């Protein structure tokens, strides 16, 4: 098992390199470069020093040289500095944005899982019941609702009309003057709407997966035999069916690990939360290559690791998969 994991890990390295190479090319294919984009409507190109500045950023070199330079810095864990006027280290920029995005997405994921599993399981065991139909309708509404629209409606209702919750940002303007516990409460209040909006859409998808997976499991023979043994329905569903139905959900969870740090552009922009999503969108608009590539390396590494972890976890959970591989 360990050898298998190690081999997969080694194979992931060239894959990662390939991903960065393709991305590097694609990112540079987009028209415009950081120097041009900096000027906005009045391009900086009228400036006689622009050539020097391109040189300074290394943009005058051929693309493959730029890539090799970037890779050689990367292997020393140097992600470079942003091309924006502040020129801050990419890792610092990511480090200050990551915590809030992680917090938001982990909380969101936890809420989704704790709600989706029972809801999905219930609607599967009571297929076509009133409960199933209501959740189905709810789920489709959730699927069909655009994030930004729901966000605006909630902001109008709870922020403007009722005034119960803050509209945007992470902290109130008088935050420094609050007591410790008031500060925590204030922070939570600011997170409420973004989490509700982000959860709403995700809940829909996950509960559907869960329902589907559960439906498949309860039609299996071993469930039938469990019932035939005279086990209580609670045990049949809770112990035999649910566990097996959770397997595919674990896979999907594993694969959504990278989205945990990717951040949601829409939710972050509309609620003015300075997270990873916003950072990336801005970097893309400004053609801030080091920031884009830095983030890409982190996300693709995580994706590869998540894939690997999911495969390994499969083997651990389900011995048949491991045996099957050995035979091949």
């Amino acid at each position, binding site marked *: 098992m360990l050898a298998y994991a190690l081999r997969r890990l080694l194979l992931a390295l060239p894959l990662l390199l390939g991903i960065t190479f393709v991305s590097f090319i694609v990112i540079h294919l987009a028209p*415009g470069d950081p120097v041009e984009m900096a000027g906005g*409507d009045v391009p900086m190109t009228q400036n006689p*020093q622009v050539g020097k500045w391109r040189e300074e950023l290394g943009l005058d070199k051929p693309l493959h040289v730029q890539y090799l330079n970037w890779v050689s810095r990367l292997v020393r864990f140097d992600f470079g500095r942003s091309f924006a*006027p*502040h020129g801050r280290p990419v890792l610092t920029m990511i480090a200050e944005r990551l915590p809030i995005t992680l917090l938001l997405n982990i909380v969101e994921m936890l809420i989704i899982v704790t709600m989706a599993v029972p809801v999905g399981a219930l609607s599967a065991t009571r297929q076509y019941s009133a409960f199933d139909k209501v959740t189905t309708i709810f789920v489709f509404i959730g699927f069909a609702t655009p994030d930004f629209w729901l966000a605006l409606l909630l*902001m109008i209702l709870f922020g*403007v009309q009722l005034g119960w919750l803050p*509209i945007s940002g992470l902290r109130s303007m008088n935050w420094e003057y609050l007591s410790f516990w008031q500060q925590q409460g204030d922070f939570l209040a600011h997170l409420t709407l973004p989490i509700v909006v982000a959860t709403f859409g995700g809940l829909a998808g996950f509960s559907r997966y869960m329902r589907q997976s559960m439906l498949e499991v309860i039609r299996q023979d071993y469930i039938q035999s469990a019932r035939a043994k005279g086990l209580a329905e609670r045990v049949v569903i809770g112990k035999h069916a649910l566990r097996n139905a959770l397997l595919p959900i674990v896979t999907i969870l594993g694969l959504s690990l990278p989205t945990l740090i990717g951040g949601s552009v829409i939710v972050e922009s509309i609620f003015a939360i*300075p997270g990873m999503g916003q950072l990336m969108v801005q970097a893309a608009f400004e053609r801030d290559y080091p920031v884009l590539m830095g983030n890409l390396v982190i996300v693709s590494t995580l994706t590869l690791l998540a894939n690997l972890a999911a495969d390994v976890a499969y083997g651990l959970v389900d011995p048949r998969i491991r045996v099957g591989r050995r035979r091949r």
Partner: protein
Amino acid sequence: MLLALAAGCNGEAGGPPGEGKPSGAITPAYGDTRIEASIGNVSSLIPNVTSDAASHEVGDFMYNGLVTLGRDLEVTGDLAKSWTFSKDCLTLDFKLEQGVRWHDGQPFTADDVVFTWETTMNAKTPSPYKSDFLDVDRVEARGPHEVRISYKRPYAKALLSWAVPMLPRHLLERWVRDGKLREAPQNWTAPIGTGPYRFKEMKSGEKVVVVANPDYFKGRPPISRIVYRIIPSQATIFLELKAKGVDVAALTALQYKRQTEYPAFEKAYNKYRYAGAGYTYFGFNLKDKRFADRRVRRAFAHAINKQELLDGVVLGLGRRATGPFRPGTWADNPEVKGVPYDPKRAQALLAEAGWRERNADGLLVKDGVPFTFELLTNQGNDERKKIAEIIQASLREVGVGVDIRVLEWAALLKEHIKKRNFDSIVLGWGTGADPDQYVVWHSSQSGPDDLNHISYANPEVDALLEAGRSSCVQAERVRYYHRLHQVLADDQPLVFLYWRDALPVVSSRIYGIQPGPAGIKWNFNDWFVPKYLQRYTAG
């Protein structure tokens, strides 16, 4: 100092008289926080290396230039007490204010002025403002409070170019010397200026907080704290305004006209409206024979109903443009009349230019070729898209076919504008406080990286531009620019459409705002909130 402040402000505490407010109580007071909202991110706290609006707005809180712009866009002293030009416009002497200190307590001297110039011109400083100083020969400190600038040739923008924020030599010199200004702490975590507010805190992508500078050389500003929030969504800013979470923000035309006209909003905010600094135009590639004919361009100008366009696109919140000078400024020639809406005249002009016959589609034809062309504009600007559609419909009426293409900004710039690979464009120009527009209209400026995108070449215009930028006497320059305005209006190298109005709102608890041609922000450090209206505890 409090006394001085009260005396300074009492007479002009001219906030609009709010309804139901006791007028006697409107006296300046220290305290409160002002919250501003910006869509754009701050890209550096040394504004000298940035070109985005947010960085400059934040920079204005913390830095001073030698000169600044007053209410009527006139140049007034900031760190400079006075200045004199030599007769030949080649020497500019500044006398600096005395007793000014940087936020860290060090004195501000003429040496810092020299340093700011050196920094700007340093090859490793990524400053977009170098072109303002290309004609500077020498900058010398002639004593601690006197600076002499020598120019190689007369440069009209000379005075105004010294509105550039002054930078502290004692903190930044070693960074500039190593070509590493971007890595200096002043760039992000510890900016030091001479301005009315001191840096307090920066949360990147979230907000910048500054607090009143008690030792400010013009007196401590009344409002104790400013929070500059980054809110990337215009819709969110608007909801924050409704919930009174933001004190100063800019509205869109639709919000100004249709969504804020209810009593609660009008009580909580004062809306302002003044001519903005940018105009939108419909421009042609003048290398194309069809557009090189002035009659065709004038015909197009006659065919477009600008007032209707203004009403349709920005709900009438703008001014019809007759030329490239901001309405109401000294360079603007009020006698120039725009080209009136007159489709009949348009058709007559097109016929004169040889476009007489019509084909089966109703399009004008010359030498067997129908008059159709492509119009490009950039994505993400709804106004320009609407304008393109209105132009398309208007020109169709006189028998000209227009195909609209909307492209991403960078692609438009690189593939079409720079390569001069376009028929026509709908874009905008921003104008600075000085009317010099050499880079936009002069025939020498039509290279691929230059800004004369339309390849305009008119000897009279060239001569006027050269004369206008090489004089430092405003009375002389007025003549050149008024004439230039007339020539451009007659020639219509592009169809000047409209100046969009700036539409800011400010919380009605804030007093001391005096809107003028320069907008409302020019005296922001005199704004105050009367004690009984203060909302936030701050310092």
